């Protein structure tokens, strides 16, 4: 039996969580203490097996009223995949106009997420 302490990142409350678990072929959670919501409990289970994160970045825009369109993942990606996804984002260039929610890169690096725009960028020519 193993005791692990985590800080939940689901919301700004940042609950301190203490987990009792059995590490074998498959991690088995025996008890979770400190979570104040169900989402947090789900997150803890996920975090112990396959940690997932969201990321945000920017992509250069041509002919727009902003130089960069800010972007984010529309679903969490595996923590270990972040730099692979960033490498794809870094290569990308787009042209205005761009609207919030536009999918700019579908499933980067084979992940189950899209890179979507988080800012409207108007065409300025």
């Amino acid at each position, binding site marked *: 039996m193993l005791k692990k302490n985590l800080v939940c990142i689901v919301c700004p409350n940042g609950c301190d969580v203490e987990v009792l678990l059995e590490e074998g072929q498959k991690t088995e959670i025996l008890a979770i203490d400190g979570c104040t919501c169900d989402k947090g409990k789900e997150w803890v289970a996920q975090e112990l097996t396959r940690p997932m994160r969201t990321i*945000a970045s920017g992509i250069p825009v041509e002919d727009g009223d902003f130089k960069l369109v800010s972007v984010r993942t529309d679903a969490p990606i595996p923590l270990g995949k972040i730099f692979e996804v960033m490498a794809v984002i870094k290569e990308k260039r787009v042209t205005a106009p761009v609207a919030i929610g536009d999918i700019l890169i579908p499933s980067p690096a084979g992940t189950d997420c899209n890179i979507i725009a988080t800012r409207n960028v108007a065409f300025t020519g």
Partner: protein
Amino acid sequence: MQTIERDLVIIGGGPAGLAAAVSARKNGLDDILLIERDRILGGILNQCIHDGFGLHTFKQALTGPEYAQRFIDEFNRLGIDALLDTIVLSLDSNRTLTVSSKKGFIRIMARAVILAMGCRERTAGAISLPGTRPSGVYTAGAAQNFVNLQNIMIGKHVVILGSGDIGLIMARRMTLEGVKVEAVFELLPTPSGLARNVRQCLDDYGIPLFLSTSVFELHGKDRLTGVTVARVDDRFQMIPETRRLVPCDTLLLSVGLIPENELSLSAGVRLEPATSGASVDDRFMTNVPGVFSCGNVLHVHDLVDHVSEEAGLVGRCAVRYLKGEPAPEEAFIPVVPKADIRYVLPQTISGKEDVTISLRVTRPMRNAAVLVTDRDRKVARKKLVRLHPAEMIRIKVKAKDIETAEKLEVSVQC
């Protein structure tokens, strides 16, 4: 010089100003003018491209620009007037403003004013950082502007002083861009930013956070070449034998935010030392009649959701004032911070309405309760698992419990 008259002028088009404007319109006020010095609305949210905004308001983890856009869309849908690229240069106690833009320098006489100017960052000068004055020293927010809005990278090898949220967010942001972030140093024994940001911005990327440690000297005559860091004792004095040189070409400062109250002061608004913001009643009115304050210019928030909520309330209060609702009587009930409480807000209340008291504690605590009392009578109590100076706490007080109150005292009960 042109002079115009308006019912409500809102200074600042960030999250506070936008929410106040939307709320004022929804509460039936026609004549509203919002003044924003940038070319776009949204304020600092425009450069906060990370997610985590809106969990309370929209039950979604939005980025700053997305969160701002929801309010901007609403603002535009309601057809509220805004002057962009326009700066307020002065405000007096009669609510007369001078306002400047490329279109002209004009005077505006307002029946009510909402102060929503936000805050600014503390600088190297403000913390009297010794050493040389090289290039490569930036506040985290300025760095965020360059990186996220201007496609400019500020350095290659970064040290961050202060564990405020913007600094933590920038540590991750720059790491993702391939910049080496050496470490974050924090003078206090606990992080200043949210725990989740320490986890997902530092721990995830192996960036060390050194607590009770600070930067004591800048090196490099031209570009920064390094910083001297050292641990501090419990009186924040440097422990000389722990001094060490950390080579870097960039130092980001995330050492606190200061409400931007210069206009407020020029109007005669009285400020609270503990918040560096205005002293307000439970309608968020300052000592200057018709002048209201909300958002980070009133007190620095940690969550934009709380800013929007507070500003929405202030928009409504301003409309009530303009509609000539009788002002609450002179005899306000003071709200006073006691044991372990750094500040409370509002500082005075009428006792006639429900009120939410916002507060911050002085030190981290666990399993304690925030207690509001009137002459030793319990008025409200809120039990919390974790209390942290970085996290604003809010506690509701019911009108029926404070009708006869003389003075409310807020304290932590361990």
